[in-house]
């Protein structure tokens, strides 16, 4: 029988609520698996063993008392390293706060999951302050791709995707400014949701760019994503309903057809045959990506200004150089980016008059090699750290929710497809995702046996 913690969140919770298995068993099994793989390869860089086992014991006691511990009863989960955990320093992939200050309380998203019976087991590796697409961290090491240890996991929240792909936990929470959930989900073969801005609470996360950052789940099952979203929204009403009748799919061309590598082009072929009959050559995507890059540089640099002045050496070199460059940006450039963002967000909503869901590749191709972290962009060898998110960045700037699913026929390594809906259209995304899984276009690959 498969180890208990490898099951879906829905199955674990059902088993715990029914008293068929104890939350403590699940928790111990997950912790053993994480320790067996080790850090940073497991995706985890901090384990809260005592807290997790105490929490699991409490869940079991609730069941033993004949009460319901909640819809996520006994489900182990991890969070990216920039989520506050009570009595711990929030390191956010950095050394800056390694000695404190200590968080007074858990991040709101952790509170909500644990109130539904879930069990936090640890925090996961990421690019320093989520600034990058690679999870190559100067302080906590590189978390490799579980499908090929010589390759990048993607980032910024790569540890969260790796932990789920490794089956150490069924769900992780991370955040996404520009693709930090979706890129590692695509490269590691799991599901990643970047919801509409504000859909989930982000209180208690140390965000680099609060104006764009969204908290979201990573999982192996679409039902788990739906369940986690439901718990995190805490009863808030939906902003929009699923459209009546069959969903109308559309293919975004133009920018999203450029720089696509051959394996991705081949893997997308069945997607286009099934769902690509309507296509739109979306304009100004290059401007959206440029605006996103400028907003992140300016807001991130401003947030870190005092620390950069005090001790620039405490930052990893790559992060420090990017943040210091951001400090030199003219205000005019930042304002131009903000004005463009306002304009394109209004225009982007018009896209959905004729389609409910748009489809694009999630990333250009397979995960790049750790030793050669570059991709081809417009014919130029370009750092993966800043360019893996070329298809996710513009969507974030446009304020659109999107979900990444692993493609079933990707070849030797995972590849991801991105589904995009109108703001508030998460339920539409879930219906579309379910259809892709049902049609055999999407499928979550297993990881090598050694994991």
């Amino acid at each position, binding site marked *: 029988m498969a180890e208990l913690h490898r099951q879906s969140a829905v199955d674990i919770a059902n088993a715990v609520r029914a008293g068929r298995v104890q939350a403590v068993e699940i928790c111990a099994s997950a912790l053993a698996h994480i320790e067996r793989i080790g850090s940073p390869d497991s995706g985890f860089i901090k384990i809260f063993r005592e807290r997790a086992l105490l929490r699991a014991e409490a869940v079991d006691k609730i069941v033993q008392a004949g009460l319901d511990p909640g819809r996520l009863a006994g489900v182990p989960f991890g969070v990216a390293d920039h989520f506050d955990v009570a009595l711990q320093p929030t390191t956010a992939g950095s050394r800056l706060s390694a000695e404190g200050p200590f968080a007074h309380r858990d991040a709101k998203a952790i509170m909500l999951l644990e109130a539904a019976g879930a069990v936090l087991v640890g925090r996961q590796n990421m690019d320093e302050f989520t600034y990058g697409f690679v999870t190559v961290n100067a302080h906590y090491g590189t978390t490799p791709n579980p499908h090929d240890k010589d390759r990048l996991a993607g980032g910024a929240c790569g540890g969260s995707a790796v932990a789920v792909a490794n089956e150490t936990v069924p769900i992780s929470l991370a955040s996404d400014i520009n693709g930090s959930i979706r890129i590692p989900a695509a490269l590691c073969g799991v599901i990643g949701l970047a919801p509409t801005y504000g859909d989930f609470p982000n209180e208690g996360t140390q965000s680099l760019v609060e104006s764009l950052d969204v908290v979201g789940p990573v999982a192996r099952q679409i039902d788990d994503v739906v369940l986690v979203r439901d718990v995190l929204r805490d009863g808030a009403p939906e902003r929009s309903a699923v459209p009546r009748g069959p969903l109308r799919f559309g293919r975004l061309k133009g920018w999203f057809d450029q720089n696509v590598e051959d394996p991705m082009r081949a893997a997308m072929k069945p997607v286009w045959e099934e769902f690509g009959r309507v296509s*739109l*050559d*979306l*304009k*100004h995507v*290059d*401007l959206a*990506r*440029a*605006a996103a*890059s*400028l907003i992140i*540089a300016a807001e991130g640099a401003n947030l870190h200004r005092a620390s*950069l*002045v005090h001790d*620039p050496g405490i930052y990893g*070199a*790559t992060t*420090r*150089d*990017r943040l*210091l*460059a*951001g*400090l*030199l*940006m*003219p205000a005019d*450039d930042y*304002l*131009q*980016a903000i*004005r*463009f963002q306002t*304009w394109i967000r209004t*225009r982007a909503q018009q896209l959905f008059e004729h389609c409910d869901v748009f489809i694009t590749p999630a990333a250009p191709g397979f995960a790049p090699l750790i030793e050669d972290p570059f991709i081809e962009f417009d014919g130029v060898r370009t750092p993966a750290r*800043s360019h893996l998110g070329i298809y996710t960045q513009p969507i974030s700037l446009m304020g659109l929710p999107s979900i990444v699913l692993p493609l079933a026929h990707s070849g030797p390594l995972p590849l991801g497809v991105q589904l995009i809906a109108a703001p508030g259209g998460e339920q539409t995304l879930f219906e579309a995702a379910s259809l892709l899984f049902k049609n055999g276009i999407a499928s979550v690959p297993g990881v090598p046996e050694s994991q």
Partner: protein
Amino acid sequence: MGVLSRGERSRPTVKTGKARLQEAGLDVNDELLEGIIRNLVVLQVHAATLDQFDAKSHHWMMEGRYG
């Protein structure tokens, strides 16, 4: 007086970058400047891309691009 577009601005150098960082209140060692300048040039390229958007009128200077 001439006003350059964002794409026509001069590229930063180690010398000008150091001066601008000092103006911003940061005294950075010379060995750090190369990486900072490289990133600043990338940001300039992004800013130049946004020159196509006319912020004043929110009117597209390249009419017809939107399909």
